[in-house]
Each structure stands twice: as structure tokens, then as C-alpha cells.
């Protein structure tokens, strides 16, 4: 069940894959939009911190390709059940997506690569609008989480300020702004101050955010800056950090409504779902391959919550094992975990009974020709297993009894030949090893690490198993 395990753990992850979204975060925007009719009358939108692009995807399908998306994230096409053909697409729609990372293209989306806190990026976006104004600015930005919570919160609030600065420059009067922010010490003040430039401000948590997640979204509706408002002075204007809540009296000093959006009777981001549900007989579970892979896996670590891990990584197939683009420790741990599970699945109960194969990060290779990611090599150490009886299987490292050989390498020896009436567990072990062999060869690219012995040679060794040693390269061994 290895590759299905995340499907069980995270219903939104599974739904995202099934419905073709690049990341589960798509549901956050969908739920917010549903609650506030954010897309009504919108043709021009800016998506800040957009990679890998699930929010842009929602914007593109809704605004450009004119598809309908319901609150559950299902694209319901149109009333007549037919997807609008390209000639029906809204060519007036303009969507600009900005991120530090590149992302794969989407219909109707103009991409910019840059730092949204940098002054020049803001100017760049303004130029792209050619004097036009935007109806909606969204920002799902999250810093490269360092693990120092206070610093991450601060950087996150700076991203929000950057986004707000851009919004104030491109939004039309009456336009809307949605941005991610962490619920943490001083941040509330920031939202409070947003009230001076937007008519309605509230603070939301979509049900697709996990319970433990500190992330929330501020939704600011109806942009109406005071006269003479100069957005370039925004930083000073909002100046956070000066105030703190020490004078707090417990009698509500600032009350900004905290709202949960999304249907509470709907899916729960924290629950473990079975793959088949009793009350959903018509729903048939099929494992779905992940959607569009991100251009740079590195984005992953930037997300504040592990829940935002993209769907591209977890599915391990032998091809992936050879070399994996995993610049961060967290990803590697994740892949290793997944891999172990995968291995376990193939081993039935056998692998659980013996040791789980050890997967080790062998090497981190530097980037190849200007690709901005790095590769790792994984190696797999097979667990030993011996069964004597009707069938024979030996798979273990057998060093020579004489320690004569300096260069001796651990060698895997595998003998298998089982008949159909061999004991059930033996068959399983053999299948398991076949599977492992495959992975191991794929992973190392070295076929000869494992020696396959056929039925004939097997006969030869059968009687004398205990004294059979693999010849080693030194040539001096007996």
C-alpha cells in the first residue's frame, strides 16, 4: 500500500490528484472563493508566490478557460456538460503569476520569476499590466521555513507586506485581496490595519488546512484607499513590531472574526480515510498518478506545512530510485519513508518479520549543467533471509572464512528455485527477492551485485550449502 498510504492519510491530497490539481492547496482557494464569490466579475488577476501553480490553475480554468468549479473542487464544465472549446475562452482574461521558482506553463497565465519583496519585481508586474488594473490579487506565499518559528513568521509577514504593496499598485478600487498569513504573535495587528484600506477584512481558515496548521488567510474585500494614500510608504505605514499585546486586558481589544470556511460536514484534512467508503458505494477508488511535476522540487521546503508537499514525490517507482532530485533533507526522509513502505508492501508479512530494507542516502551529487537542483543516490541494503526445507533460498553476505582477501566486497548470493507446492512463505520470500532484485539493480545500475543461480547449478550446491562460498576476486581463496 506504499503509494496509497498518503491517499489514506490525506483526503485532500487524494482528491487533488483525482481531480487533476497540481497541489492540494488548490482547495484552499476554491473554498475561499466559494465563500466570498471571489471570482465574480473577475477578468484580471495576480497570483503571487504561485509555484507549483495550483492556484494559477484554478484561476486559469475559471477565468480563462471559462470552466465551472464547485466547492468540492470538481470541475463541472458548464451547464450543457461540455467543456468550453478554445474559441469560447475568454481572451480578455489576464493572469500574472509570480514566484521565486519557475513553474510549468498554464493557459492564459503570464509568468514572472522574482522576489515579491523586491521593489523591482513590483514595478515589473505593474509594467505587465500596461496601465490596466487587477480585480483580484492573491498571495499564497510562504518563506523557506528555517525552523526558527519567530523568524519564519516575520518573513511571512514581510511577504504579505510585499504582496500588499503590489496589490495597492495594481488593484482597482473595489478590488479584492487574499493572502496567507500565519496566526502568530504580532500578526493580528497587521490585519487590523488592513481595515483602513479595505472595507471588509476577515480572517479565514479553510477546512482543507490541517487542524495543527497555523496558516490562515486574510480576505480583504473592496479596496478603497484613503485620499493621498501612497502605497510605496506602506512598510512604514503598517510598521509592525512596535506594538505588542502586553497591555492586553482579555476584554477583546481587537476582534477580527476568525471564520472557518468550507463545509464542516465535508472532508476532514486530519482524518485517516479508508480507500473505500461504505456510504459511498458508487465511488470507486482507483489509484491516480500525480499531476504535473514541479519544475523544481525545491519548492517543497518552502511550504510551511508538510501537507503542502506536492503530489509528485511520493510515488516511487524504480526509475525514481536511481537518482532523485531531492535537495532537502526533509524530502529525502520522506522518500525514504515512502520507499520503505513500498518495500514492505511487496514483502507481505515477510519483511515485517525480518528487518525492513535499509535505504541510505549514498551520495548527494552536485547540480549538473545549470539545472538548479541536485541529485541524490539511494542505496538499498537487503535484509537477510534464509529458509531451508523444500525449497532453497539463501540470500546473504558471505565473507570468506579465511580473512585472506583484502578487497573482498560484500556479495549477495541468491539461489532460488521453488516449485508450486513449495511452502507459501517460501514463495513469498522468493517473490519478494525478485522484487528487491529489480529495485536493487535499478538503483545501483549494477547487475552483477546479485548472483542468480539457476536450477542446474542449484543441484550442485544443494548438498553442500554450508560450505559454499562465493569466489572473490583475489583468486587466492580456496
Amino acid at each position, binding site marked *: 500500500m506504499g503509494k496509497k498510504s498518503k491517499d489514506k492519510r490525506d483526503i485532500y491530497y487524494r482528491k487533488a490528484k483525482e481531480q487533476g490539481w497540481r497541489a492540494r492547496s488548490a482547495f484552499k482557494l476554491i473554498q475561499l472563493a466559494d465563500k466570498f464569490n471571489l471570482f465574480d466579475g473577475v477578468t484580471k488577476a495576480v497570483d503571487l508566490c504561485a509555484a507549483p501553480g495550483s492556484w494559477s490553475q484554478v484561476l486559469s480554468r475559471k477565468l480563462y478557460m471559462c470552466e465551472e468549479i464547485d466547492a468540492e473542487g470538481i470541475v463541472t464544465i458548464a451547464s450543457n456538460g461540455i467543456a468550453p472549446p478554445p474559441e469560447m475562452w475568454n481572451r480578455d482574461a489576464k493572469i500574472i503569476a509570480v514566484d521565486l521558482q519557475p513553474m510549468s506553463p498554464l493557459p492564459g497565465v503570464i509568468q514572472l520569476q522574482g522576489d515579491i519583496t523586491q521593489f523591482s519585481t513590483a514595478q515589473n508586474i505593474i509594467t505587465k499590466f500596461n496601465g490596466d488594473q487587477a480585480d483580484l490579487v492573491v498571495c499564497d506565499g510562504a518563506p523557506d521555513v528555517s525552523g526558527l518559528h519567530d523568524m519564519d513568521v516575520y518573513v511571512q509577514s514581510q511577504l504579505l507586506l510585499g504582496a500588499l504593496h503590489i496589490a495597492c499598485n495594481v488593484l482597482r478600487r473595489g478590488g479584492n485581496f487574499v493572502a496567507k498569513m500565519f496566526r502568530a504573535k504580532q500578526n493580528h495587528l497587521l490585519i487590523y490595519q488592513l481595515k483602513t484600506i479595505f472595507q471588509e477584512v476577515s480572517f479565514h481558515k479553510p477546512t482543507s488546512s490541517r487542524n*495543527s496548521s497555523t496558516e490562515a488567510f486574510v480576505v480583504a474585500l473592496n479596496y478603497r484607499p484613503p485620499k493621498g494614500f501612497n502605497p510605496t510608504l506602506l512598510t512604514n505605514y503598517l510598521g509592525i513590531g512596535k506594538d505588542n499585546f502586553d497591555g492586553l486586558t482579555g476584554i477583546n481589544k481587537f476582534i477580527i472574526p*476568525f471564520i472557518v470556511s468550507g463545509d464542516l460536514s465535508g472532508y476532514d484534512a486530519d482524518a485517516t480515510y479508508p480507500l473505500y467508503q461504505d456510504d459511498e458505494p458508487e465511488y470507486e477508488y482507483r489509484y491516480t498518478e500525480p499531476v504535473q511535476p514541479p519544475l523544481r522540487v525545491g519548492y517543497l521546503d518552502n511550504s510551511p506545512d508538510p501537507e503542502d508537499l506536492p503530489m509528485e514525490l511520493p510515488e516511487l517507482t524504480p526509475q525514481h530510485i536511481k537518482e532523485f532530485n531531492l535537495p532537502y533533507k526533509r524530502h529525502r526522509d520522506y522518500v525514504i519513508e515512502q520507499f520503505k513502505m513500498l518495500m514492505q508492501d511487496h514483502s507481505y508479512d515477510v519483511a515485517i518479520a525480518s528487518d525492513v530494507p535499509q535505504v541510505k542516502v549514498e551520495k548527494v551529487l552536485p547540480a549538473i549543467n545549470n539545472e538548479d537542483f541536485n541529485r541524490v543516490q539511494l542505496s538499498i541494503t537487503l535484509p537477510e533471509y534464509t529458509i531451508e526445507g523444500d525449497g532453497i533460498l539463501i540470500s546473504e553476505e558471505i565473507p570468506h572464512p579465511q580473512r585472506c582477501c583484502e578487497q573482498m566486497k560484500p556479495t549477495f548470493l541468491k539461489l532460488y528455485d521453488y516449485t508450486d507446492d513449495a511452502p507459501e512463505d517460501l514463495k513469498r520470500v522468493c517473490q519478494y527477492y525478485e522484487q528487491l532484485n529489480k529495485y536493487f539493480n535499478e538503483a545501483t545500475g549494477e547487475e552483477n551485485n546479485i548472483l542468480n543461480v539457476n536450477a542446474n547449478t542449484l543441484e550442485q550446491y544443494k548438498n553442500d550449502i554450508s560450505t559454499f562460498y562465493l569466489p572473490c576476486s583475489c583468486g587466492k581463496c580456496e
Partner: protein
Amino acid sequence: MALVKFTGKLIKTDVTAIKLLENHLLCGIGAFLHVYSIDETASSLLHKLRVFNGVRIYGIQLSESGNKVLLHAENQIKVYSMDLKSLEFKEIACVESSDWVLRAKWIDSDENIVAISMHNVIEYYTKDLELKKSIVCEERCILYCANLSYNRWEDLVVLSGTVFSEVLIWKPSFDEGAELCKVLRRLTGHNGVLFSIHHVPGMELICTTSDDRSVILWQFDGELQDVLKTNEEIRLKKRMYGHKARVFGCQLLTNHVVSIGEDGFLIVWDLNGNLLRKIEAHQNGRIWSVDCSEERNMIVTGGGDSGVIVFPIKPLMMIDHLEFQEKATPKHLVLLENNDIVLITDKGCVYQMNSESDWCRLMWTFEEFESYSLLEVSSCRKMIALAGFKGVIRVITLNESNGKLELTAYHRGIEKDRTYSLHWLNCKHILTCGIDGLLYLWRIENGALILLHISQLPKIKERWSTAACLCGKGIAVGDRKGNLHYYDLHDLNPMQTFKRTHNHLGITNLHYDSTSGILTTLGRNSRVCKFKLDSHTRQLELLTSDKLPFTWLCSMVQEKRIITAFSGNDFVLWDYKTRRVVLQLGCGGGHRSWDFNPKHSKFEYVYIKNKTINVIKSEWSCINSRDIIKGFHVNEINSLRCLKRDGCIYSLSGGEDTTLRIAKYDGQNFENIDVLKSHLSSIRCLNLYQLEDESKCFLFSAGGRGQIILWQLDFNKENICNQLFSYYEADSNLSEVRVMDLCSAKINDEVLLFAACSDGKIKIYSMQNDELKLAKTLEYKLKCILKVTLLTYEDETIVVSMATDGYLVFWDLKTGYKFGEIKAHISGINSFAFRKMNEDIFLFLTGGDDNALTMNLFKIVRNENELGLETISDYSNDGTHVAQVSGVYLDEEYFMATSLDQKLTIFKYDILNGTILVRYAGVYNSTISDAKGIEVFRSEKSLEIVLYGLGIEIINCNLSV
């Protein structure tokens, strides 16, 4: 306004700032500055003060005069006067900047202070922190790091690192009239956010580290100052890879570069960028801070595991290579007590050699040892035994007066009686293993070997022994297949056999300690097993089996708590106590012939590689690291339970790092007692069940993969905590279920455990013979259940569950049906506490994911045999906390809450005619992020609070203000 007074007593969390002084060490841990004395061998905490309120120290800078210290935290800067003799610290000045301060320092001979903030702005202050001016860099964007170089305003050079991979070099005094200050140089080469930059005036190098896992050394000619005035280039000299994750910090020293990373590695490089040493520290958690002193050969690091460690920059070692000149190939070698080496070749020639005086002498040629031989040294290292194919055994002794080797004993043997292995039991006895697993016990006496006893290994493939030792009145023998046998000296067959103590690669080492009666076994399967010998029954009993990070374990240096092992091609010395690598030497792996001789203050390691004898010598003190502060959990603590015994607080904690830890706090020191690693996945909840015997209780721990472990705590035992049973779902469909909370009670003479699960079920287990059996399941909806607890009403047990939907749900345990619910929060309920007011009235306090604190006063009623619920009143507060409320506490007078907003709040309350009246009583700003809960001990006039999350803080709350 505040009705109570809070005092922070102890903190263990990320060590974000560290400064090494002559004899002292300053550490910034949370809002507290800790002062340690430190010398070559010892260290101790001298003083601790709370510098900031709820923000943590990110930088410590000493004034040139040494009597003032500059500290910064988030956007605050403070100056303290400091006297390290009297330990007096006084606040002199403080300022709040409008932006996060990345770095600050003294300049102009302590007359002024400069600070660089996150938006690339320099603030120039007087020594009393009055702002003189701000200089804004023309590149306005956010920075993660910056370095301030040179000590005078006119010279000051700023190197700032952007999120977009660039290093910007600028000079605030360049054109002070301009609105924005020009960037003089941009260094591009990194591929991700910059995390640290270092430059030292006088050095022609700049060092930077980044998100892209690399460290870069940049080079230029001359003084950086001058280079900036010309067109001279700053070149990328070397890009260094070695870290496996982000590189958080670096320091340039005169001869070295030191870097620290997210992966818990500390790497020492030379100035050409060659990796000299890689040290694994802080339990593989993140390393946040580093400081070095080259004169004292010291590096100190502060980690995410709350620990502080000192390391030598350079382990001092002597490395020698002796070319073996003769034609033959050296096969085996051993070290003697006088540091001489004895070696045998494939031609059966025995040589004696010495690495210091560089001589090598052929002693004997034994034709019987040609092509196959065994060479073993006794533990006193004065005797050597040789054996081979033809049954011959020879013993050689070192004559201590003249340093010569002498042949002392000889056994002729039978032709073709091959000796498979040979073990010294003590300096008089050896054990050899021959064909058919026959074990011969010999005594060396008067130039002869006297056969004392023969025993035999049970039948296995490859039937020979791999290790042996005397153990009480018998002999413990490990065989080639990893089985352990215990023989007495009367029988052919073993008295006792432990199958597969280690894996099929055999047992590598056996050691018996007669005082404790403990037998330790090492294997090539990463495991160290301990057995206890019962002197009456003469039976061995398995006590523990511990897994190490290396597979091939070799031997144990008892006195030093060091294990020797092989990891790939490296020989490793591993400190058993700190679980850390002490030394790692490339040698080509354990299949080579090698010997290791640990002595009291020194050690020596020799091995053969390509006909060369390699000798490495060092002293323990030159390689060893030392803990100044012991590490604790590496990541969040999800659950923590406290017990009070003998005036001490015992804390049991489990977290994301999958470890269960036991520690003891005596009001002063926080001491780790044990670390237990049995969980497959993170631990989310703990529950204690007190047994009748006061000193014993059950501890249940549970978390990911549906795993629940039952432990017994016994405070009279040396090992307080012992695992009794581990339950986990074999069904892979269930194995993704997380156990979120646990509670236990004795009901109808049966101990029942209730587990709140992420699949919307409450599973009830009964305990039988120290095992858990699933007895019953209560099914809620497909909502993750976060909390579960029990109420008693009359003689009924009521189960209360709380899930992500914000409802308190009441179940009648007898019928298994729910009979009532209260909507307490708009989303998940993270914490609760309750009081039984009388027979049927309960007061329930909950803290939610919606930032609110809610109280519900309700009554349980019985209508015609069915239970029911009547609410009386409620109270809700959603204005105090701005993030999830993750922990609450409730007693007769007060209630408390802690939240992810890092505030600990206390309220006084009353219930008048069924109405809840609440008064805010005070707040404590903690620096523990990701707070997960609180444990509280109430005494009449005070509260003792243990707050946990990413670290722990112990806080006292005085109620009589």
C-alpha cells in the same frame, strides 16, 4: 493590573546565539542569557538572566573593552554592563527598531553601535542606543543574513544575503548624502536563499552558505576595503559540498572554515575548501549557532535539540606509515603493550616492529602458518597466540625487561586439524575452535598447552566460533551464525543457547563484567545486547538490545564508554553515552587486519593497507567533544506528563523525533535520565496509570502507525522505564491511523485504555497480563478525534470525545451510544480540562484551533434509564489568543491557557448562580514556539508550570501578589 507574578525558572529550546570568551561562554536560549564558565575539561552554569520579554536572543556582541555586552532579539537591541567576576549584569540602554535586526556590533572603539536589519537598512546608534541615522541600501528586498565588517563607521562594509541568491556588498558611508546607498559589488554563484556570510578584516576571503547546501569561498587580492575602491574582481574560489541539507552558518578562521547545517553536521574545512572533518552533532537536528577560538582549539555549537557542545577544531593525531619492504604480504598484525607491532606474513614469517624507532625485525619463520594463520593478542597485550591449518598452536611472550619476543609454548596438533578461530580468555587460557565446531580449552603452563576441556558448538552451517570470554564459572561463546552459547566446564554441549542474538554475520565481541554480572555482546547487525548472569541458577537473561547507527560493531572500551565500529570504509569511535561519533578514520574497512589499543589517556590504531602498516596515535582529550548543555528532544514535544516524587519533577515526554525521554528537574538542574527509541513513528500522546504500589505506574505512549506501547515505570529500579508491550496494527490499511490521545481507568476491575484515533474511532483496549487487547470500538464520524477523556456519574462511565469539528460528544460506555453533544468551538478542540463540581455537574474548559477558550457548565441527567445532558451556562473568550489554544489548566480558582502565539495566560473565575464570571489575571510571554500544552502543579500560593512545544520552559506563578 496583573494579579499574579510569573518567573521563568528554566528553559530548554533552540540555542540561537553563542559567544566564546576567554574563560566563559555566553549562550542565548530563548529570552535568557546563560553564562557558563568553561575550560579545557569542565564547565558549569554561573548565571542566568532574562534579557527580553518573549523574544529570543539572536546575537551577542562584546564591546572592545569587554565590560559591556550588546544583545539583540527580533527588533530589539539592548546594552548591558557586564562583570564576569561578580556576575553583575545591568541594563544600560535599549531600543526597538522598526525592523528585524540581523546583526549588530560595536564600532568606533565602543563609542557607537551599528545594526543591519532585514530590509537592508543600516541603523547607526550612539553607545546609548540613540539613533543617529539610517542608511537604506538601493536594493530593497528582504535579507536572511548579513555581515558587518571593519570597526569604524568610515570603513564599515556590509555584506548582505538576499532570498534571490545574491550577496550585496555596500558601504553605508559611501555617499551619506544620497537617498539610497549604492551597491558596490554583487556576488552571484549560489542557488537559493543565503543563510550566512562571514568576512574577517585582514583576510582575502569571504565565506557564504546557502539553501543550496553549498559553502562558497570567494577570493580577492588585498584588503576588502581597498578592493571595493577599485575594479578588482572578487572571484568564486571554491564551492564546497559536504552538508546534506541547508547550511545555516559559517565562520572564517585564520586557518580553517567552519560550517554548520540543518543536517546536524559541523564541518571543518581548510582555506582551500578541502573537507578536513565532519562531525555529527546535536542528534542530527539543526545547528543554529557556532563560535570558535583557534587559540584554544575550540568550537562551540548550539543546536535545535537545546544542547551546547564543544569540539576541538583539530583533533590532534599522529599518523605514521610504515612501508613493509619484504617480498611477502603482511596478513595479520597486533599491538603489544609496549607499542611494538607483531605481524605475520603469508609466508609464515613473524616480524616485530616499532613505529617510533622505525625498525622491523624478522623473528621466526613458521612453515606451518604459511598461507593460513591466526594471530591473536591477549588482553594484557603481553602474549600472542598463533594457529593455522595443521593444528599447531604457538604462544609467544613479550619479555618486559628487554622488550624481546620469546617462544613460550607449543602444541604440536594433528595434521589437517585446522584451527578456525582462537580466543584469549585471560593471560593463562585460550580457547580454539577446530573442525566440527569442537572447542578446545587450553591452559598455558611450563612451555606447554594443556588441554583442559572439549566442548562443541551445536550444528550449524559454518560451524565455528567468532568470540568467546569467561563468564562467571563458565564460558560464553558466540558462533558464526550469531548464536550465543553458554558452556560450563563439565559438558560437551552448551547449558544455554540464545539463537540469533545477532544476525548471520556472527557475534564480533563478548565482554563480561564480573562486578555487575553483565555480559555484553556485539554483532555485525548494529546491535549491542546485554545479558545478566544469575550467579545461583547460572543462567543468562537478556536485558536489553540497543541499535547503533553502524552495522559492524567491533569492540567496547568499557572505561571510556566507547564502541569501535566500521562504517563503510571508515573505522569509527563512537561515544556510547552521548551517542555521537568521536572519530572517524578512513582505513578501507573491517575486512583488513587491524588492531586498536585503548589506554587510559591515549589510544593507538593500526591497520594494513596495500602492504603498508598504518599507525594512528592520539590522546582522548584531543579528539573528544563535550556537552556543555545536554541535548533534549530534536523536534516538537507533542506530549509531556509530569510526576512529582521526592520534591523533584519527573518529566516523561514524547515527540516528533519518535523518542520517549525521561528527565528529572530538582528545582535547579534538568537532568536526562533515559532516552527510549521504540516508536516507529512520532509519539503524539502519553498517559499515566498509577499502580497501587506508590513507586510504580504504567505509561502508555502512542502516535503514528496506530502504535501503542505499554511501559512500566518503577522508581525503585535503576532503569526506571521498561517496555512491556508494543501494539501496532499489522493491517496496513489501518497502519496510517494516528492515535491522537489516550486515557485510562480501572473499570470493573479491568484496566481499560481509550485511544482517540484519526479515523474517527475511539478504540478501547483491555489490559491482560501486561498486554493490550482491542475490546470495543466507538464509531464517530470521519472526523479526526483529537481528545478523549472519562467522566463518572453515579456508577456509570461516560466517555467524552472531541474532534476537529469542535463538538464535545458524550458516550455512555455501557451501551456504546452517544447521548449528547455540545458545540464548543468552530473547529478542532486541542485541549481540555474539567472539574466535577458535584454529583452531576461538570465544568469543562476547552482550547480550540479557532483561538478561543471556552467553558461549559453542564449537568448529566437520567431520564428513564437513559443518560442525558443539560447545559447550564457557558463562557467563551476569543480575543485573548491570536493563534490556536493548545493547552489549558483548570482548578477551583484559576484557569490557564497556552497558545501557539507564545503567550501563557491566567484567569481567575467564579461561578455565581450558575453564571461563569471571569477575570483576566496575567500573562507570561514565553519563547517556546509551537506550544503543545502545559502541565501544572498547584500549591496554595503558587503554580509551577511546565510548558512544552519546541523545547520546554518551567515557569513559576506567584498567586499572592
